[in-house]
């Protein structure tokens, strides 16, 4: 079969339903019919209704709601339960409505007929508000009212062709059949887009799911997407994980513990990153989380604390013991606790609740304490899928997420239940170090993407002053922590003291030596000076002596009238030589 190649992409009709436009790559096929099928109570009518309402309000596309089942009064009630005033919308010509009522017992088929009456009514309703969208809920009711299936099939085929001709985006709902998607095989006529809704209960937890079975001429997500019916309508969990295109921040934020910051290249975490603190019970995960919260609140950021283990009051009371008082921040509206039992509702519901909280509170920091408790509500694949979407969403919105994860004793500490490590940017591992009959807490950074980080194990000391990270000692028996470390520290201090006093003593000795040396030098100097003086005196005497002799000799020479070697002047001038 040759594929038809169209130049222009299939035009889409946005639904405005949270998450749906993402998985359907823009919405329903514009100007074509879409079939929504599913069993009773799976949310077909609500999905169709929301498509219409949002179309009318958000996209200025008026819509017609044709109800085959519920009378207008009930429908108005349904609409109002979603926060829409149907009568007002009708008055503003945004919505038109017709209730098609078929009472089997009244009808007698007396020959050939068609459904022109239905067409006229639809045309009338569409024209009255210039509708662009229409919902038929549930067109299959025709089959229960009319017996001539041949006519019905032909007429429905004509109806859908008629919608296409008029360029109306139609949504047709249909109840699931036993072997077919719909009881009367509507999927055979509505071939452009088929959406299957499903409502399942597994392990006492019910989940609604949506799957796009078929979407002619468009790419679409093929998975089953869980969805929820909330007060404001349908919410299909956003699937931002279809792409990894979020921008990242280079800003660094403190972990609230200076020493931990210095382990993370001195600056702390990246804003918008996902941080995991994992460890066995009682290793101080919550304390770390709370220090982080406190420092964020001090910076004036908004924190959302999702507590799945303890109540808000309990957390706040306990944190006072490490000198962290969170109550003022709660009062100031910087910190919001949301405590709930994980088993309270399904995983998807949790995710949606979180989404709603984020949308309402707009936090910069989110704490999930502990994320491992969510595994209690779903299988590990589900949890991973939910968490992936949650983290991606948070990352995309630059929310820094800190998760704590309880690792069970005996398990490999470095595997998390959810295998979420690939989603984590900074992973801090807390572990108990048992030595010398005591248990101490050790901390190290397993990974931290995009920053140099310390490879050292630090000991965590919790006190009323907060959390302190101290160096551990590596001895022959392993790392030394707690009292062993303290003993080692004391020993080293004593040694240091001893060494210091020895050095001082040596110093003093040396000083004395120097003084002695200086004295000796002084004495020698004095001796030398004395000797020098003597020599000078002697030299003077000698000179005097020599001068005297010369004079005598000259006199004798003069007396003897002896020759002079030189032509000496006789006029009594001074001699040249002395």
């Amino acid at each position: 079969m040759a594929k038809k190649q169209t130049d222009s992409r299939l035009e889409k009709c946005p639904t405005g339903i949270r998450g749906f436009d993402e998985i359907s790559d823009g919405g329903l096929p514009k100007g074509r019919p879409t079939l929504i099928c599913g069993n009773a109570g799976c949310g077909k009518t609500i999905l169709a209704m929301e498509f219409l309402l949002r179309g009318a309000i958000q996209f200025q596309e008026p819509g017609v709601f044709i109800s085959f089942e519920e009378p207008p009064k009930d429908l108005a009630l349904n609409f109002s339960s979603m926060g829409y005033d149907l009568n007002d919308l009708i008055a503003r010509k945004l919505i038109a409505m017709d209730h098609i009522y078929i009472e089997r017992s009244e009808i007698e088929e007396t020959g050939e007929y068609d459904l022109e009456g239905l067409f006229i009514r639809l045309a009338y309703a569409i024209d009255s508000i210039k509708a662009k969208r229409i919902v038929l809920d549930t067109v299959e009711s025709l089959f229960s009212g009319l017996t001539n299936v041949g006519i019905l099939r032909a007429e429905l085929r004509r109806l859908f062709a008629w919608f296409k001709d008029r360029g109306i985006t139609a949504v047709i709902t249909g109840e699931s059949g036993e072997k077919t998607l719909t009881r009367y095989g509507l999927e055979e006529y509505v071939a452009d887009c088929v959406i299957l809704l499903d409502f399942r209960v597994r392990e006492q937890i019910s989940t609604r799911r949506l799957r796009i079975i078929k979407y002619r001429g468009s790419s679409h997500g093929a998975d089953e997407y869980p969805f929820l019916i909330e007060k404001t309508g349908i919410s299909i969990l956003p699937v931002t994980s279809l792409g990894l295109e979020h921008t990242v921040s280079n800003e660094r934020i403190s972990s609230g513990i200076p020493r931990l910051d210095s382990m993370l290249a001195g600056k702390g975490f990246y804003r918008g990153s996902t941080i995991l603190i994992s460890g066995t019970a009682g290793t101080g995960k919550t304390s770390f989380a709370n220090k982080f919260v406190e420092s964020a609140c001090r910076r004036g950021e908004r924190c959302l604390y999702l507590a799945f283990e303890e109540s808000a009051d309990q957390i706040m009371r306990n944190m006072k013991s490490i000198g962290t008082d969170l109550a003022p921040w709660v009062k100031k509206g910087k910190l919001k606790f949301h405590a709930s039992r994980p088993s309270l509702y399904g995983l998807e519901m949790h995710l949606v609740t979180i989404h709603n909280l984020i949308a309402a509170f707009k936090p910069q920091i989110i704490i999930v304490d502990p994320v491992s408790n969510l595994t209690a509500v779903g299988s590990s694949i589900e949890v991973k899928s939910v968490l992936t979407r949650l983290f991606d969403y948070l990352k995309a919105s630059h929310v820094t997420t800190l998760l704590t994860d309880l690792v069970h004793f005996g398990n490999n500490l470095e595997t998390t239940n959810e295998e979420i490590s690939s989603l984590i940017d900074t992973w801090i591992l807390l572990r108990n170090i048992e030595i010398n009959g005591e248990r101490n807490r050790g901390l190290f950074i397993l990974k931290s993407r995009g920053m140099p980080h310390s490879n050292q194990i630090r000991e965590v000391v919790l006190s009323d002053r907060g959390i302190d990270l101290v160096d551990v000692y590596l001895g022959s028996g392993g790392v030394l922590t707690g009292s062993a470390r303290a003993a080692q520290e004391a020993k080293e201090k004593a040694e240091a003291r001893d060494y210091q006093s020895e050095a001082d003593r040596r110093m003093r000795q040396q000083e004395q030596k120097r003084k002695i040396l200086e004295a000796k030098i002084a004495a020698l100097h004095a001796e030398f000076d004395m000797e020098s003086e003597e020599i000078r005196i002697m030299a003077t005497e000698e000179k005097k002596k020599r001068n005297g002799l010369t004079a005598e000799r000259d006199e004798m020479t003069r007396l003897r009238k002896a020759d002079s070697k030189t032509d000496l002047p006789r006029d009594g001038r001074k001699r040249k030589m002395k």
Partner: protein
Amino acid sequence: MTGKKTKANEQEILKAIDKVKEEKYILRLYVTGVTPRSTKAILNVKKLCEEYLQGQYELQVIDIYQQPKLAQGEQIIAAPTLIKKLPLPLRRLIGDMSDTERFLVGMDLKPRK
């Protein structure tokens, strides 16, 4: 005892039949323009009414193309549709009325099987 009761019942039934004979049939035939099927239905209804309800009926033919709002008010889906408004119960006869048997059943002139 039983004989008495049967007698009374018979009388009641006869009365009811007389009443039916006296009763007026209010009929509305909804058609879509002048399609062959519409024409056929109009002819069939007129013929059958003359045959079975002579002087006892009031028939109104309405083109729902002209009055679409009526189609909504009267809950018309199929065309042609003949509505028997009176006597009660209300009946909707759909089709071109070529099936006389079903027409009579629909008009409550013949018991349902």
